Structure formats: structure tokens, C-alpha cells
């Protein structure tokens, strides 16, 4: 097991390296100049050139890359071109917000998706199953941006249950923080809930047809035990892969949700940085998100063994 973990961690190095190269090249390939954005629309070309020099943007690209990688390896993600705040400090300030949002979205999606997926499989080809299918199609199709605005309109403006803007961190005031996070988490988690629920349903349908389930029923076990103890545990391994991938994707989805709900998370920070061509921030944030993504996948791989004892780690 330990050997397997070490092996996976070693595999992370080329993955992160590739991400670093891609991120660096992509952001520098996009037209647009951070110096220009920084100076605004009444800057002169001379001002822009002077600032480009000061920011080191006139150096050859490979030099800029190696300089950046060298710094990242020592734990220095650079300094924001615009705010002059170290990127790592900003990530440390904002990531807890994104983490709390995505975790709450994950909890919401699991609470919704697993029971509904199981229920749809058990009630296969009934009205409940059809309703479930309709619901999941809606969940997958509705754009997060639109859903967020709709939620705000209904629950915030019309009903007044939740605030429409502002933020209180759950680690500062748990219940108040929850009020601010619930709507964004539901908006963000709905897509994942729909995807996971469909996966749970199809896995359950496969497992429920297997002989050992019939055997369990023949033994006289209650339907509750057959479904939850025998069928669901086996059906959950494929769903776990989806959950892992989707949780990683939540980090991406948070970009839109945080913008709509004005949450001070990593996603919103990244969007602003891209618009302003703040290279160190974009590079740092994407590298960090990629790192989190691969770590989540590692955790998911390790969890397979818990749900499926046949899996061995070598």
C-alpha cells in the first residue's frame, strides 16, 4: 500500500510538470498584454514598454519559464502583477472558501444522488424511475450561471431566506456562514448530483441482476439489507470514480458559481486574473488546482480497496 502511494506520488511529478508547461504556454499565447491592462486605456506605448521591462515581460519566453519554474520549486509562486500580493498568500486566503463551497456541494450532491439513484434502480421502469431520469437530464442540462440567478431571485429576493450577496466564512460563524454558502453549494452541486445519480442507478441495475443478490434475497434477508449492504457497496466503486472526477470538476465549476454569488474564492480570483492577464496569478492558481485535482484522484484510487476488497495495491 505504502509502495503504491509512493509510486503514485512519483507519477504526479511528470503530470504536474506537463500542467506547468501547458499553463505557462497557454497564458502567454493568449493575445493581450498585462502591462496594457494595468495601465488602462489612456496609457502611451512608451509607458507600456517601460512597464513590460519592469515586469520582465520582454525577456525571452524560455527564460521567463525557467525563472518561474525555479521559483515554484522553492515554494515561491510569484507576486501578482496588479496587487503586488504574493500569489501563494492569495491562494491561501481564497482556497478555504472554494474548499468549503465545493465540499458542501459534494455533500449536497451525495445526499441527493445516492438515495435517488438507488431508488430509481429499485423502481426500474416505473413512474418514479421516469421522473428520476427527467430530473437528472434537467440537472445535467441547466447552466449553473442561470440556475444561480434563478435561485437568488426565488430564495433571496422573493422569499428572503438567503442573502443575495456578501460572505461570512463558516470557520468564523458556522450557521451564518452556512446561510451564505447553501445556495451556491446547491447550484454547484446539482450537476454533480445528476451525473452521480445516473451512475449509481446504472451500477445498481447491473448489480441487482447478479446471482449473489438473488441468493441474498433467497436467504431471506430484508430488502433494505440486500440493497444497502450487498448491492450498493458493490455498485458504489464505479460511482466513486465519477465522484472523484466530478469533485475535481467542481473546482472548475466554482469559477462561475463564485462569480454569480460574489464569493471570495479561488475561482473568482482566477477569472479576474485571466481578464487582467495577471500571469503569475493564473499560472499559480491553475497549477494549484491541478495539484488538488490529482491528489483527489489519488485518494479516490485508494478508496477503491475499501469498497471492493478484490482490488490489491501493488
Amino acid at each position, binding site marked *: 500500500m505504502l509502495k503504491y502511494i509512493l509510486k503514485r506520488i512519483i507519477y504526479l511529478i511528470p503530470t504536474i510538470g506537463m500542467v506547468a508547461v501547458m499553463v505557462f504556454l497557454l497564458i502567454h499565447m493568449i*493575445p*493581450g498584454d498585462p502591462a496594457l*491592462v494595468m495601465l*488602462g486605456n489612456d496609457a502611451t*506605448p512608451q509607458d507600456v514598454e517601460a512597464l513590460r521591462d519592469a515586469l520582465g515581460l520582454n525577456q525571452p519566453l524560455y527564460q521567463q519559464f525557467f525563472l518561474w519554474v525555479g521559483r515554484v520549486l522553492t515554494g515561491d509562486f510569484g507576486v501578482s502583477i496588479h496587487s503586488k500580493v504574493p500569489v501563494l498568500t*492569495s491562494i491561501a486566503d481564497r482556497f478555504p472558501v472554494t474548499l468549503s463551497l465545493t465540499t458542501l456541494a459534494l455533500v449536497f450532491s451525495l445526499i441527493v444522488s445516492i438515495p435517488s439513484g438507488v431508488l430509481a434502480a429499485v423502481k426500474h421502469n416505473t413512474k418514479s424511475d421516469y421522473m428520476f431520469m427527467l430530473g437528472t437530464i434537467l440537472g445535467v442540462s441547466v447552466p449553473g450561471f442561470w440556475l444561480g440567478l434563478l435561485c437568488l431571485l426565488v430564495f433571496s429576493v422573493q422569499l428572503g431566506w438567503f442573502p443575495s*450577496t456578501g460572505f461570512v466564512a463558516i470557520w468564523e460563524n458556522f450557521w451564518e456562514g452556512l446561510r451564505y454558502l447553501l445556495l451556491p453549494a446547491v447550484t454547484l452541486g446539482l450537476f454533480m448530483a445528476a451525473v452521480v445519480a445516473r451512475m449509481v442507478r446504472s451500477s445498481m441495475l447491473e448489480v441487482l441482476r447478479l446471482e449473489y443478490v438473488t441468493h441474498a434475497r433467497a436467504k431471506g434477508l430484508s430488502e433494505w439489507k440486500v440493497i444497502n449492504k450487498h448491492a450498493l457497496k458493490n455498485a458504489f466503486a464505479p460511482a466513486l470514480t465519477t465522484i472523484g472526477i466530478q469533485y475535481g470538476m467542481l473546482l472548475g465549476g466554482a469559477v462561475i458559481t463564485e462569480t*454569480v*454569488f460574489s464569493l471570495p474564492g479561488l475561482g473568482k480570483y482566477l477569472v479576474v486574473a485571466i481578464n487582467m492577464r495577471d500571469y503569475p496569478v493564473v499560472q499559480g492558481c491553475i497549477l494549484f488546482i491541478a495539484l488538488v485535482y490529482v491528489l483527489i484522484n489519488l485518494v479516490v484510487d485508494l478508496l477503491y480497496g475499501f469498497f471492493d476488497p478484490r482490488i490489491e495495491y501493488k
Partner: protein
Amino acid sequence: MSAIRSKMKMRGVAICLVAALVLLGAGSLWAAPQPKAGGEIKVRLNTDITSVDPLASPAMVNAVVLNHVFEPLLAYTTNLKIVPVVAQSWEASKDYKTYTFHLIKGKKFHNGAELTSEDVKFSVERMMNPKTCARAKLFTGVAKVEAVDKYTVRILMKKSSPGFPNSLAYVAPVMAIMCKAEVEKQGGQITHPVGTGPFKFMEWKPDRHVILEKFAGYKGQSGARDGMGGERVAYLDKVTFLPISEESVAVMALVNKEVDLVHSFPQKYMKKYKSDYSKQGMVVQEVAGLVWVGAHFGVTRPVVDNLKFRQACAYALSIKSMAKAAFMGYATINPSAIATANQYYTPYFKEWYAPDMAKAKQLLKESGYKGQEVVVDTTKKYSYMYRMAVAVHAQLKALGVNAKLNVIDWPVLLKKHLKGQSQIHTFGAAPMPDPALAYAYLKRNKFMEVYPEAEKLRQEAMATADFKVRQKIFEKIHKICIEQVPWVISCNYNYLNAFRDYVHGYQVLSTGMPRLWGVWLSK
């Protein structure tokens, strides 16, 4: 008889008393409500600030916040005259080579230190340094700053510079007078700004809020509030700026009373405001701004370098339609670079081409245009630029031009704009109270290179302080614009500010800068 008389007398006195009471009561009803001190106002920012250093960035959003914390030497009034703020008075030498400022005595920074000429000298030198000021180029003409005595500062210019006060009154960044000791204490990187403004900085939590509090020790100008000039009385105890980037969310927050003021209310919500929100305690104020919006022609680019082609476009493009498409009517039609609110504005600046498609087609034919593709660049970052480009594109198509709409990222459009690389692009220019600076935009599309007479006139305007002479020069430049069509300016967009009806004393300014001194709450 005497009893009757005395009774009548008593009745008369009673009537007089009742009348006096009624008048007193009515008087109190008619009197304007008295400002009430206290309370917190929540103001929406359309994006978060990027720095708490007032000079670090020209971003308008930074100035919106820091304008309440810091004060400049000079500032613009409502009709863009320049008045002192930190200075009690100021004068220029006859040759406009020396400016002398007499500071307000006993004016305090938020840390309790008294403002002296050393602070002003330090601050102006900070403005001159490109490493510390995003608009240091405005101060390249300064030769030396001298602290004459504790309350007198002298700025010596390299040459006659009648327009220099405009640099000190610049809108964004606010040319802040800073506390020398405090900046040095913070090692040059400002993390906790200390100014002399009516509100002091308390906290900035990135993407969450900026909090200011009333500065009890404020001492400033006397006289009525006028633009950024006049008295600055802080009634509010606390000001909280909340960054809300989504405009629909900002409107919802205002409806929900989670914010009290939205200083860039979206035009698309005006219909809803008129039908519903106005009955729910929301107020919208509108004023013509200084930002001028239109289509710029790259006069050295293929096809557009042809004067007759540009004139054909000028006849084909209806500036009213462009404004309507971009701002849904919430704009002030103005084909010039001089805002209608500007003191230099005269009726002559209304002169422009009346839409005439027949003439446009004739000129297009005469230009020798052979159906080449003409690209109209725009961006969706500023939705009004995109909407205006759609209108321009449609009207050019109607003229028979093979126009192509090209939507690009804002940084890309900005680069093309500055380098004159677009054939045609829509653009909103930054507020420029001094028209001589506004016409510098004609350098970007290379018009000043193609038509140096215009640049010569602009330089003449820069070299004189004579109001009438300058006004005539600007009229001449506008005449050249009519003849040569380096751009088709459509309008100044109107600032729409929305706030709750318990917010009093708020007034929209043509610079677009919110001003929260003199504002009080009745909730």
C-alpha cells in the same frame, strides 16, 4: 362694550396664536430634512479594488474607494473647474512655470500627524516616479518641488505648463497627498492607507469588502459642496464597499436592501425600475458623464485610410442609433470629444453629419471601394462597446460595405486600439476634463501623424491657459474631425446611480465618481 372689546381682543390674540402655531408647524413640514449623523452605507463596487495604494493603478474602482480616504491638492467642481482641496489657496506665476500652494493649517492625517509641505513635496515626487505612480507621465513637466515653509509648497515646471493643474486634479488615480512618515514606515508598499480624507481606512478583505469609518478629526474646505470641491462633511459612521461583479445580482441586492447604493445601475433594468422598483423605495439619478463612446477609424489601415470611405461611413452611421443600441437611450448625443458637462462645450460641438444613405453610397462609389472586407473590432467585456459595434456593423452592411464583426478579448482590443491596428473599432474613452488630453486619443489611430495640423493645434491648446483661446482651438479640432472623420463619436453615456430612498444628499457627478461625504441616512 369694553367686555365685548376685550373678548374680541382675546379672540384676536387666540387667532394670532393659532395662526402662528399653524405657520410654525407648516414651516417645520416645509423645511428640508436635517442631516442625521450615523449609520452605515453599503455601496456596490463592480469589481474588487486591486490595491490600497492610491497611485498604483489607474483603475476607476480604486479611485472610487480611495477618493474618500485621500485628498488631492486640487479637484474638479461639478462643471469641471479646478478648486483647491488640501490647499487653502493656490496661484500660478504669469508664465505658468511656477505653482504655489498654501496649505490648510492644522489639517490632520488619520494617524494624527499634521499635514505639512514636506508631505506634499514627498507626495508630488511620488507622483513623478513611474515606479510608484501609474500616471507619472502627467508629471514629466515638473522640474522641482520645494517646501518653502511649513505650509507653503512650490512646484517648478520645466516649461510653461498652463494645463498642469489638471494633472493634480486627475480623476483616476486620485493624486493623493500622503503622509511621508507613514509611507516610509510601511516600507513604500502601502498596506494600510493613511490619508486626510473624511473617512479613514479600516479593512480590506479581498473580494469581500473594504470598510471605511468616519474620521472625527477631519478639517477641510468651507463652502458648499461642489463636485469634488467645497466642504466634505462625513455624516456616515461607516462605509462598506462590496464587490459584486454580476450586475443582476447587484440589482437584487439593492432590492433586498443588502446594499444601499449601486453607482453603475444597468440600463436594462430601467424599465423594471420605472414599473416596479420606483414604487419599492428605490431612486435612480441620471447625469451625462464624461466618457465618450464611438467608432474609431484606423486611418492608416487598408480601405479605412481612404477619406471618402470614412466620409461615406459618417453619412451612413447614425450616431443616435449607435447610442440607442449601446445605452438604450440613457446617453447624451454628442459627436465630439468634449462632454456636454465640460466648461469648454459650445453648441458648435453638436455639428456632425446628418444620416444620408444616398450621399453615403455616392461617396462609397467615389472612394473606389471594391467590396474588400472591413473588420469592426469590439469586445464583450464592456457590453456597450459590443452593442454599439453591432449597430455599426449593421449600418455598414446597409451601406454595402463587406463588414465583419470581430469580437475579441478586452486586452487584445486595448492593444489594437493603442497601436492603431484596427480598421474600425468601438471604444469608450476615459473621462478627460481637459479637452487637450481628450484629443490626444487621435494619436492612437495615427490620425495625428496623417494630419499633423490637428496635433499642432492640440499643442497650442496645451501651451495656453486662456479659456477663450483654448475653446476656439478645440472648435477648430472638431472642425477637422468633421472634415477628416478620424472617428464617429456617438455620445457621452449617462451615469445611472440607484439607491434606497433613505439615502439623502447623494448626487451623481459627471466624472462618475461616487461622493459619500454630505450623504446621510434616514433609516
